[in-house]
């Protein structure tokens, strides 16, 4: 007979996440899983399968495609959707596309606002989703460390960080009025290391961008950018060079910095994690400056 002591930290995290996912299925009219193709989304997809087995997860997944994702991410996304049988919805801000908004022409801030934040709000309104599950974790960033697992949004998708609903025990207040919604974060209490340990333990498939390989790289303003297609204009003197790199986090390729690494297997990635002295979001261009920018973006409806 197993004992409680046998439940490890990872077992607890897994059980908590499954509990949260089932709570969403039981309490909301039209939930959706926000799928961003990265490692956290891969873990969520795995947990979804477990939470609702032997049935299929009772909700679709939604990908906000900015048009600037790594090509491998899109291929991986489509394959995983087909394999899991979960309905995949893809939304792109058509207005942004028409205006030619992109990270290179408009900069990280405008691109993120138009193609991610506004696109997400459009998609949620379009489908009338009342709960959106995301893979954000509290260890990622200081304002996220403050956020509830069930995070209330008003009809304008705004987060009010100073007036959050108290969230006691495992009792989640899922009551909302029409038009209001919640963002749900089943991985709130996971750290980046927990995510990797779980991926390793469960044998979860992730895009190979997380593993080191020779890739065409330019170094720009201290960030290693992988030239994923011909849309990245090279500055004078820049020439892509093959370097052994991998990613700790995945986003729009011109905004996501790679790290030099020799970790070509998941085990080696975790070993690297244990030795690392920088946080994963360091590679994200949009997070830098001003200090409370994530809080602001979140208030406006960013994930």
């Amino acid at each position, binding site marked *: 007979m197993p004992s*409680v002591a046998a439940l490890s930290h990872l077992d607890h995290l897994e059980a908590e996440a499954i509990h949260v996912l089932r*709570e969403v299925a039981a309490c909301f009219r039209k939930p959706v899983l926000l799928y961003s193709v990265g490692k956290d989304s891969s873990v969520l997809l795995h947990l979804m399968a477990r939470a609702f087995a032997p049935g299929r997860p009772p909700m679709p997944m939604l990908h906000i495609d900015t048009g600037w994702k790594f090509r491998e991410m899109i291929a991986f996304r489509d394959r995983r959707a087909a394999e899991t049988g979960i309905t995949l919805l893809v939304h792109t801000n058509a207005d942004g596309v028409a205006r030619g908004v992109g990270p290179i022409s408009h900069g990280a801030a405008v691109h993120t606002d138009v193609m991610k934040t506004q696109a997400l709000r459009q998609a949620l309104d379009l489908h009338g989703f009342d709960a959106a599950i995301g893979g954000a974790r*509290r260890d990622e*960033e200081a304002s996220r460390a403050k956020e509830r697992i069930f995070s209330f949004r008003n009809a304008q998708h705004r987060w009010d960080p100073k007036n959050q609903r*108290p969230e006691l025990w*495992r009792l989640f207040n899922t009551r909302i009025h029409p038009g209001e919604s919640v963002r749900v974060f089943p991985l709130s209490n996971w750290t980046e290391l*927990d995510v990797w340990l779980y991926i390793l333990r469960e044998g979860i498939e992730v895009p190979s961008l997380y593993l080191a390989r020779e890739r065409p790289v330019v170094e720009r303003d201290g960030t290693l950018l992988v030239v994923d297609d011909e849309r990245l204009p090279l500055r004078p003197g820049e020439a892509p060079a093959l370097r052994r790199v991998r990613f700790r986090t995945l986003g729009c390729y011109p905004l996501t910095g790679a790290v030099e690494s020799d970790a070509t297997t998941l085990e080696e990635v975790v070993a690297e994690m244990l030795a690392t002295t920088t946080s994963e979001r360091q590679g994200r261009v949009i997070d830098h400056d001003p*200090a409370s920018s994530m809080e602001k973006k979140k208030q406006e409806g960013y994930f």
Partner: protein
Amino acid sequence: MAAGALAERLRRHEARTRLRFITCGSVDDGKSTLIGRLLHDTNLLPDDQLAALERDSRRHGTQGERIDFALLVDGLAAEREQGITIDVAYRYFATPARSFIVADCPGHEQYTRNMATGASTADLAVVLVDARKGLLAQTRRHSHIVSMLGIRQVLLAVNKMDLVGYRQDRFEAIDGDYRRLAGRLGIADVQAIPLCALDGDNLCRRSAAMPWYPGPTLLEALEAAPARTARSDAPLRLPVQWVNRPDPEFRGLAGTVGAGTVAPGDEVVVLPAGRRTRVARVLASSGEVAAAVAGQAVTVVLADAVDASRGDLIAAAGDPPEVADQFAAHLLWMAEKPLYPGRRYWLSLGTRTATAQVTEIRHRIDIDTGAELAARHLELNGIASVRLSLDQPLPFEPYAVDPALGGFILVDREDHGTVAAGMIDFALRRAGNIHWQHLDVDRAARARLKGQQPRVLWFTGLSGAGKSTIANLVEKKLHARGFHTFILDGDNVRHGLNRDLGFTAADRVENVRRVAEVARLMTDAGLIVLVSFISPFRAERRLARERFPDGEFIEIHVKASLATAERRDSKGLYAKARAGLIPNFTGIDSPYEDPEAAELVLDTENEPAEALATRVVDHLLATLA
């Protein structure tokens, strides 16, 4: 690193246990510094976050050129600007032996609810005290909340020992003071540690300055502390969260095991209905298993097709919990709107939701002194001992036995805010032991389920007096307050049920009789019924009144003079009646008998309909109180 060694190292990481704890203390006790140092000294503070912290320290910090660790945990812009902690911040660190989740709690009284959020899931509390100041009012308040939420282990961090010359007698005096407080509050396990968080003394390494202290460092104490996990040696408690029905062949009940173990063949009882059956299969996250324990998320299949759904509790048949609908409980009020006894809220406990009202505030507790004070209402952050009445019986455990089945929240039915956290002490009246099978469903039970008492609001008056207008407004207001209502309107009923009746005196009597009977059936169903009928004759109105228990029938005379009603003539009926096209029209060629003792008289010529509707609602609420 060799593959084998790496695999072994990863396996150890994977198998780490965990501890959740909170840190609390007064402003300037050095709480944030302590957490910052813990993260820093366990190498869990990444370089780029440290660099950002140094940058922010120069911009917002209060430590001059030194790093202001408070900025690490105060992640909201408003917190940085005001230099206070508003909400709980969760931070994560680990040693080779254990993973830690820290909830850094606000100290200010106005954010007590956020401290409760952090404390509700904690195994242990680190209470900080400034060695120069000793115990403060906030220390007492925080310890009270810690105790109320069932935390039984406290690490008393006596900080800033450097500022009292590392004196042992000072440390021991504070330790003694705190143990007396903890004894009063029922906190059994207190360990005091002298610290200097700024320098890291006795945090992660022994202090050379305090050789007289033989005990563990804070980190060692955290590594050694037992976790308050769910008990697997207790009888099974499995609240049903979600019914898994992917196909006609499979019907599983999904939930997280709250206590005990569950295995195929176990005899269980489904509460509150009380049906007994056996467990046929248990699915855990990895698939079918021989047994699952407290803390695991499972899906169970029962041997018989018993009715079970979200909110039910699967419990060990040999040792089920009590089922009750009235409780003594402690309440922490968390909303700006005060608590008034009698108001109804949604109550969530386990996976079940009921409607509840506080029937009595037994006393408020002054958290600074522990004194019990009389109170008629409860303000934000108020704590009280209350009596609670529910619309349905539910299975529970006292909070001290099982927080998962004894802790509840109250949710406002209008704005949907979480307004209170509650902890059940004991049942006031047992709803019956678990051997009963079914409730006798009578009119009182139906009404209780709706959280209301049935009433008939009988609007009588001339055609065009304003009955339907006011009845409609009243219904809207009642509906908004969460009452279950129904309008029986004269015109509408005559289109259906009373289609065969005309306007002769006999037909009018029959018309009223039938409507009274329908209203009676509806009050039996627990509804508040609004009857909007001319009902011109006293005798029939009296007959209608006699169909209902005393106090349930409220006669409302909607009054307008014939001239006014005729001038309004919104349906053009008076004109037709005057033209002789409608015989026996009330007021024209058939009498209207004014009520002699109506509960309410509404003068529609001098007051707007909206105000009159409010009067009706107020009157009704007064009869319900």
